[in-house]
């Protein structure tokens, strides 16, 4: 829901800025599409700069390098160990002298040889840095974790999507009835249970009631993978169902009130046909924006579920980094997540413009 609200606002702004001068031109569809794409891309540059700044402030000022070194090495670390740590993580130069935060005012130095410009350079070249704990490049860790994460999130996403759309359609079909009312309350109820309770309860059930599904672990060997992911996927689907059904139901209910529905009904189309053909098609425009924005995030995995079921994905990477106070990985993860978000935003815009040509022509 958040992504769509944001979308309409952003789009409105672009429209007001560039609407007038473009209207007179007769552009081919592909050219307008490219034009639109480039405009959206340029819009993201300042946002990306802002994200870089926030990440920098968090991991260089809110937590100073020395503090992070102490948390990593323990409070009794020797001064030499701390110096080495700082130097190895790029916080100080070869003489053991810490870099200044923003501008290097020392004589004989490049004024831009500071922590801020160094990390900006790293971010701008999409260099995610290395883990503070193991020294391994974070990109490698992400590559390794992406497949197990996708094994969980992709099936859960696809099945959950169909299940929630079907349920939402059903609720809209019987709208204003007792089923609809209590269905909505049930959705709120499933939303009101924290994910940790789902996970703990699900694992306990798996361990005690049916012994077929393993409660912990992961392999990548054909069918046994399915056994390992069955439970996490089921929990992920079920815990997200309430939110999605409610959201899609609201989208569909909005469509049901539109004039074209009344027209279709007046012309004698059956209830089911109106709902499944006329409304679903139009409702899809809103759904696409919701769905596409979520796509890039599938790679990030899930924080709680993965660590709980021992799946070596990106969510698990993050929880391990939290436990070992690996600020390098956390910093990279925050930046990587923002990149994915912006990528999702771009995808949404393109899809939206593709299914609804009014957007790009404005």
């Amino acid at each position: 829901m958040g992504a769509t609200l944001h979308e309409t606002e952003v789009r409105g702004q672009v429209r007001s800025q560039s609407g007038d001068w473009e209207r007179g031109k007769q552009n081919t569809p592909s050219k307008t599409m490219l034009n639109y794409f480039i405009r959206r891309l340029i819009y993201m540059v300042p946002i990306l700069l802002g994200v870089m700044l926030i990440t920098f402030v968090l991991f260089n000022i809110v937590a100073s390098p020395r503090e992070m070194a102490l948390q990593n090495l323990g409070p009794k670390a020797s001064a030499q160990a701390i110096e080495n740590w700082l130097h190895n993580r790029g916080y100080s130069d070869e003489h053991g002298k810490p870099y200044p935060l923003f501008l290097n005012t020392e004589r004989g130095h490049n004024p831009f040889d500071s922590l801020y410009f160094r990390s900006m350079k790293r971010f701008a070249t999409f260099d995610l840095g290395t883990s503070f704990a193991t020294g391994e490049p974070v990109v490698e860790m992400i590559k390794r974790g992406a497949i197990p994460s996708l094994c969980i999130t992709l099936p859960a996403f696809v099945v959950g999507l169909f299940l929630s759309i079907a349920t939402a359609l059903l609720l809209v079909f019987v709208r204003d009835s007792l089923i609809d009312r209590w269905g909505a309350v049930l959705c709120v109820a499933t939303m009101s249970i924290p994910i940790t309770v789902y996970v703990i309860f699900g694992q306990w059930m798996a361990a005690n009631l049916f012994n077929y599904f393993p409660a912990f672990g992961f392999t990548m060997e054909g069918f046994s993978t399915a056994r390992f992911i069955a439970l996490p996927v089921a929990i992920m689907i079920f815990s997200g169902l309430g939110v999605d059904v409610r959201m899609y139901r609201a989208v569909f209910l909005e469509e049901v009130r539109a004039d074209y529905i009344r027209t279709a009904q007046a012309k004698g189309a059956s209830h089911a046909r109106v709902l499944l053909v006329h409304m679903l098609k139009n409702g899809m425009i809103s759904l696409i924006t919701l769905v596409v924005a979520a796509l890039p995030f599938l790679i990030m995995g899930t924080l709680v579920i993965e660590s709980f079921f021992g799946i070596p994905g990106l969510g698990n990477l993050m929880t391990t980094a939290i436990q070992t106070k690996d600020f390098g990985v956390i910093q990279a993860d925050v930046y990587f997540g923002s990149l994915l978000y912006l990528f999702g935003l771009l995808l949404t815009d393109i899809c939206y413009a593709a299914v609804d040509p009014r957007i790009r022509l404005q």
Partner: protein
Amino acid sequence: MPIWISNCLILAGCAALLVLLRAFLFTERSRRALNRLRRDRIGIVCFVTIVALLLCGVADCLQVVPRVTLLDYAFRNVPREEGYSAPLAPTTFNERDPKPLNGRHLLGTDLLGKDVFLQTLKGCKTALIIGGLTSLLYIPVGALLGILGGYYRGRVDDFIQYLYSTLASIPGILLLVAVMMTLGKGLDRMAIALSLTAWIGLCRLVRGETFRQAAKPYVEAARALGQSHGKIILHHILPNVMHLVVINAILGFSGLVLTETILSYLGVGAPVGTASWGIMIDSARMELSREPAVWWPITAASGALFALVLSLNLLGDSLRRAFDPKAA
């Protein structure tokens, strides 16, 4: 700080909140909405549940003698045990030679022998602090920026939009974790971290509604009669977007309580030793794997949490219906 000062401060805070609410509820539109809400049975039940749980939280903030709160005082007759004991059991739990307990416990006792029922009630305080403190921080910021952006448009709006678009592009839970990692543990820090992301949703909502309100003829009329921008915002726009703020605050409260459990699970939430539902649920990982399982702490904690969050969600929905009967 002497306890009477802290007690007075807490009571004054509650009183100020009530006065604010009353001022808001005094408008014509709110009164009509409240009349509608009075017929909504689910809404009333939810409201009573929320008030009861929050009163427990307030009772755990007021101190009778230093470090003994009103809630502790009410439960002073409940003795402490040596370890786990099942609900209403006469002996300690699952040991070779079970020892008799010092008293009966409605919901059993936890690892340290504390009464689970009391701990659950004490969890209300943590929920109240996290929800209340965060709301106190983010609601003024979100509402103010939203109104300013929606009313003045142009450059001001562009800047505010940029501000929240940037913060929104960092995935919420990752930002929360990063901020908590850099700030360190603690309830006050958690409130700061949570409010950093929480104001975005409110700001968007208020901004959109202000757009709509500012285009209406009554604002133009007020302008034509020579009212200043500040007065228009305070006397005309604010009362017309206030219901959104209240609904958003209620729904946001539930989200904050849920997020606390995730943060506690990740180990960056409330400090160890706090009576929080998130920590109680988290420690159930170990407790359920015992044989036989220790099921009562997680049941009590998630039951209380479920009651509060569900009531908040349903009350928020009821309020939305009451204020906008056509849309729902």
